[in-house]
């Protein structure tokens, strides 16, 4: 349904070349190339254990790859620490939601603004005017983001006390608060009911339309993948086996084999 918006002349936001990650002899990701273009929603799919999350972890700096490079907005970011990759403009969420459970929802989002603030130890202790202005700004951004995901009524609830679906949205809002250019979502729809999944899809569509943003996501729910992706990359056993517009992928025999051949039960 979605028209292939992918244009060759659009800027490449993220490019990985030949990344390889090995765990104790097992090649979780092997010689993997990926280009994400500006303004698109790219879905990375594949059966369990295909290495999708590992790719994400390499891109976001949680793992350092054995080989290969990650280039973001023209700069090499391979092997940099997660926090510095966030500052350069990549934000992510986790497959099994990782919020700061004993902090309030608003504080969770405010934490996202951390990398966009500068106040140091002295200005924080003495609450200098500059620091207060900055706090005010952090708070404003956080309030906008919490409103954007429609969680404002829960701003002062502890993150662990809100519903599961809301926690997913909160995590996305926290990622957005870091002011990313690329949003990396690891199975955002998992655990959501059909209604919440629908809401999520329209939320992501609105997001991409309204902000200068690119989205890279791992998804198992084929409805979501087909519904919102501009481009789909299929992984199996650490390698890319196919890529293309959603419709093309849907009918690709290799992909069907990868899914049905071995690992039917999932998704």
């Amino acid at each position: 349904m979605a028209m292939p918006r992918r244009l060759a002349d659009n800027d490449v936001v993220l490019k990985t070349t030949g990344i390889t990650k090995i765990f104790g002899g097992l090649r979780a990701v092997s010689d993997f190339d990926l280009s994400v273009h500006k303004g698109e929603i790219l879905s990375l799919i594949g059966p369990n254990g295909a290495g999708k999350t590992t790719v994400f972890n390499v891109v976001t700096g949680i793992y350092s790859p054995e080989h290969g490079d990650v280039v973001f907005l023209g700069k090499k970011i391979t092997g940099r620490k997660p926090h510095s990759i966030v500052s350069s403009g990549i934000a992510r969420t986790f497959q099994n939601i990782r919020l700061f459970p004993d902090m309030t929802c608003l504080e969770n989002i405010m934490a996202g603004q951390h990398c966009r603030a500068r106040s140091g130890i002295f200005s924080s202790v003495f609450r200098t005017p500059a620091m207060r202005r900055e706090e005010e700004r952090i708070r404003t951004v956080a309030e906008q983001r919490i409103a954007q995901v429609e969680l404002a009524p829960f701003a002062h609830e502890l993150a662990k006390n809100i519903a599961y679906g809301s926690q997913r949205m909160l995590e996305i809002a926290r990622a957005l608060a870091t002011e990313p250019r690329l949003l990396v979502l690891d199975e955002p729809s998992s655990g959501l009911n059909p209604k919440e999944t629908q809401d999520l899809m329209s939320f992501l569509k609105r997001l991409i339309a309204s902000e200068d943003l690119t989205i890279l996501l791992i998804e198992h729910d084929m409805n979501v993948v087909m519904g919102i992706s501009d481009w789909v990359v299929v992984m199996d056993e650490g390698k890319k086996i196919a890529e293309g517009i959603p419709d093309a992928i849907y009918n690709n025999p290799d992909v069907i084999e990868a899914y049905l051949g071995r690992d039917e039960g999932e998704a």
Partner: protein
Amino acid sequence: MGNGKSAGLSKLFTTTPWYVPVLFSALVVIYPFFATDYFIDIAFFFGIYALLGLSLNIVLGEVGLFDLGHAGFYAIGAYVTAILNTRYQIPILALLPVSALAAGLFAYLVCSPIIHLKGDYLCIVTIGMGEIVRLALINNPFDLTGGPNGVFGVDFPKLSPNLVIDSSIEYYFLVWAVVGLSILGLISLQHSRIGRAWNCIREDTVAAGATGINVRHYKLLAFVLGAGLAGVAGNIYASKLMCVSPESFTFWESCLMFCIVLIGGMGSIPGVLIGAAFISLFPEIFRPFAMYRMLVFGSVMIVMMMVRPGGFWPRKRGGVAFRSLLEDTGNGNA
């Protein structure tokens, strides 16, 4: 220890009723005028433990790093003060920032290589660090620390040549003024991006990194600040007792600080005060029990944890009780 600049801070006390800090400050100010020197001295040591508790609370309460070697930083502060004062006659108050810096620098140097360790592994390394400091003090390197005798003849703090802090009540106000200022500073920190970053690391280290927080930097910062504050406590302690010796900085002392934070409630400043009160007042109250008093002390610690496992005054956030890390190990080591 006025609440003078509380105008800007008032909104920070969102979850503690305003009258609690006001009443407490008033009590602190009035108390010594109605107490004997003995009770003032108890309150002085309460203040010292409050400082130590606050300093460990940064590391343990705010960031969730298990530090059972905090007495090492305390010792560095006390010994730097004692040595520089007795050898070079540098005034005690001038040494206050020096001992804080020395302890902070020491923390930076020793913690840098070990900061990546997790949970109990970090815990044993801090224990080892604390023990190394204590053993080094006993072994008298370069004839500096006076070995097991320690360093004696430490001076009184002098505000001016005529204004000497030498009575119990003056020491009391000195320590509580420092406690008061530290609390104001720490409350500010709790409500800044630094405090939030610390809490994020405690809640989920990986997520904190993925949210743009420089985990290593903020862990180190917590250690350095915590050590610096412990160094300040060491400075005041050294001049109060007029001598320092290694038996004041044992592993047991680190354990007491750990208990202060947990008995009070992790990350909670009023909690730290309550914990420090318990640790310093309890053994004094039970003096008449002589050899049984530590027996009682031990059992009460157990009972406290049964009755209030989250501490006496857990930190509140948004009106909901704050019980971090108490639930489970979460992302602890495997």
